[in-house]
């Protein structure tokens, strides 16, 4: 395999584990093996760790600890929010509004509801990759029971106008969910300022570990469980809690994520300056400070990605399908891009550990690879 440790520019896929969070994880895994539901000493210790973590996560979101439901991660949080809140609504006809740019955990949960007879509207976005609040208003129906719009898009980083959208929902008494997996910690994720009723987050996108996530459920918002079992998490999510990962999540949630906006801007400018006709997707929109998605017209994003990986730089393109090959991003297609354009784009996402030197090396490598492909007619 590769001799040197590659530079990591794929923090929207997952983040490295923070050393403090890792220490908490290993210590907890070793020492706190009790079941948090047990009455005895061991159970009590586990429960203490669970509740400490809950306060940490709640603090990050400006929520009350009782409003935090721990889950196995972002996918489960989104499923619980969508399936759970729709099942909890008591109308006979049900309508859900979401967008075309959501993560598959939201899109496919909605598709499942559709198979069960729920009406679903997928809002479109323009080239800016941002939902228009007027579009949302137009699609409201008397029996709309849930609106789900992601806080920040995982591929372009485009930030959605959640406060405006949530205000529309509130006006009409509709539950509002936002998938905050990418946004939490990177931009203001205070649930009261956002105005959301449900908000999904994941530990491993904020330097915690895989296997832990949370759903913020505002007081008086009803969510039916999607898994059935014991009474954990106030009857909303059964199963013995993953204490080590949750404890590490609590620690990670309290740590500020590094501000990578200057590095991101440097990377973006550097690539645009050295690769003619490269352009930034959704450049006009407010975006996550760590994300840039760049189109290299006529080039194969897959080819550049492989070349960069072999040169020691980890980036991403589109979405991996079940075989591990790349399919054109449904987000870029929803923005009106062609199949070819979508396949010519790469996502660079920064985080803890990235340095100016790494960014400059990446700019150099991208420029070299893009020019090499130009010469060897990867540009069709």
């Amino acid at each position, binding site marked *: 395999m590769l001799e040197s440790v590659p530079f990591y520019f794929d923090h929207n896929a997952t983040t490295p584990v923070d050393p403090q969070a890792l220490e908490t994880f290993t210590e907890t895994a070793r020492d706190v093996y009790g079941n948090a539901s047990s009455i005895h000493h061991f159970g009590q210790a586990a429960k203490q760790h669970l509740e400490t973590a809950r306060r940490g996560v709640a603090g990050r979101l400006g929520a009350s600890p009782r409003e935090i439901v721990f889950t196995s991660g972002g996918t489960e949080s989104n499923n619980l929010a969508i399936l759970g809140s729709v099942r909890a609504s008591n109308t006979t006809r049900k309508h859900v509004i979401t967008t075309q740019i959501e993560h598959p955990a939201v899109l496919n949960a909605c598709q499942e509801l559709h198979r069960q007879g729920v009406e679903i509207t997928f809002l479109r976005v323009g080239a800016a990759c941002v939902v228009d609040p007027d579009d949302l208003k137009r699609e409201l129906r008397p029996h709309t029971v849930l609106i789900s719009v992601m806080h920040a898009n995982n591929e372009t980083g485009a930030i959605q106008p959640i406060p405006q959208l949530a205000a529309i929902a509130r006006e009409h008494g509709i539950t509002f969910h936002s998938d905050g997996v990418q946004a939490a910690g990177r931009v203001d994720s205070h649930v009261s300022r956002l105005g959301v009723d449900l908000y999904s987050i994941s530990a491993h996108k904020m330097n915690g570990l895989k296997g832990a996530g949370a759903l913020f459920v505002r007081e008086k918002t009803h969510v039916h469980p999607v898994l059935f079992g014991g009474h954990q998490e106030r009857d909303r999510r059964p199963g013995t809690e993953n204490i080590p990962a949750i404890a590490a999540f609590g620690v990670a949630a309290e740590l500020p994520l590094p501000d990578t906006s200057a590095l991101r801007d440097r990377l973006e400018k550097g690539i645009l300056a050295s690769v003619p006709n490269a352009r930034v997707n959704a450049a006009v929109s407010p975006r996550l400070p760590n994300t840039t998605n760049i189109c290299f017209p006529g080039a*194969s994003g897959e080819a550049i990605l*492989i070349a960069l990986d072999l040169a020691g730089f980890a980036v991403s393109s589109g979405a991996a399908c079940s075989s*591990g090959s790349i399919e054109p991003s449904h987000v870029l297609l929803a923005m009106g891009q062609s199949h070819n354009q979508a396949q010519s784009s790469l996502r660079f996402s920064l985080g803890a550990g990235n340095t100016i030197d790494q960014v400059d090396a990446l700019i150099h490598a991208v420029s070299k690879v893009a020019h090499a492909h130009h010469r060897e007619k990867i540009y069709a």
Partner: protein
Amino acid sequence: MPERIAVAMSGGLDSSVVAAKLKREGYDVVGMTMQLWNQRRLPEVASDQATGRCCSLDDVYDARHVAGQIGIPFYVVNYEKQFEERVVQPFVQDYLEGRTPIPCTLCNNFIKFDQFFDIADAAGAAMVATGHYARVTQNAETGRQELRTAFDLTKDQTYFLFGLTQQQLARTMFPLGETRKSETRELARSYGLAVAEKGESYEICFVPNGDYAQFIDAYLREQGSPREPRPGPLLSSDGRKLGEHRGVHHFTVGQRKGLGVSSPEPLYVIATDPQSHTVTVGSNQDLLRPSLTARDMHWVSIDGLQAPTRAQVKIRNRHMPAWATVEPLEGNHIRALFDQPQRAVTPGQAAVLYDGDLVLGGGWIE
């Protein structure tokens, strides 16, 4: 720095051994699997047999496993769109027009030895290696790249490779060209590869259950242009109507099963005509043809043909090449006059010309 080689890994035995062998020889090997077709796309033709077929998730899993075992970087590259346009759609069209196509040749010409070279470029690989049983040599005098049959003639795959260009051959390695299949398996065992005992696939990769007509119907339905069933008459070779058939695309020249008529002696399809929707059947004797013409000739190891030449002509993959006198015709066609009439000369299949182990060139039977 060792030379970098991109190995096209299908997850099968042969390409796995190629990757491991080259790695042991000290090359900087990058493994790549081409994702060509989503095997779950047409549920009608899905089959348990899809495991062990190209592009199934199991095969990608195996390729990745082997890459991990031998310690090379590994990528899955997606050519589903190109494969559909360049291979699947022509395949469907050929069948509808009464021909029996060979998708593997199109895939080699337009995907495996074309698109794949671009990704090899991207990976910085000067050479591409595959698990095909064939050899490439260079003519010492002319410098021309020559395609030759594999040492193991029972596995030789040159019939599917005649379309390769000089440029493509110059960048291609077939490390199994001098290896027998049994030796390949022994190598896999000695390397400890996870696929050492894996079986082989013979069907066309995107039709795992082997039912082409069903695939074509399912594909056209998915594309929103379902075919009306076009039954037609089943005729004897002297023009008598023997019965009805379900549509010409269910039949291929030489086919014996599924004709739906009984006869004292075995009957075979001897011709299909999509225009009149007729299928003509006859005896084994009726299948014999003294000659063939082929179009779009591609010359591999020679520049071309100026005068009638003796050559061995192979008219399908499992055919013993037959001696013929081959004469060039106008418009890049050839006519081959067989010394002995050949059975089931099938439009759409390739006619590949050999001089001993040397592949002269090939074209498409009309």
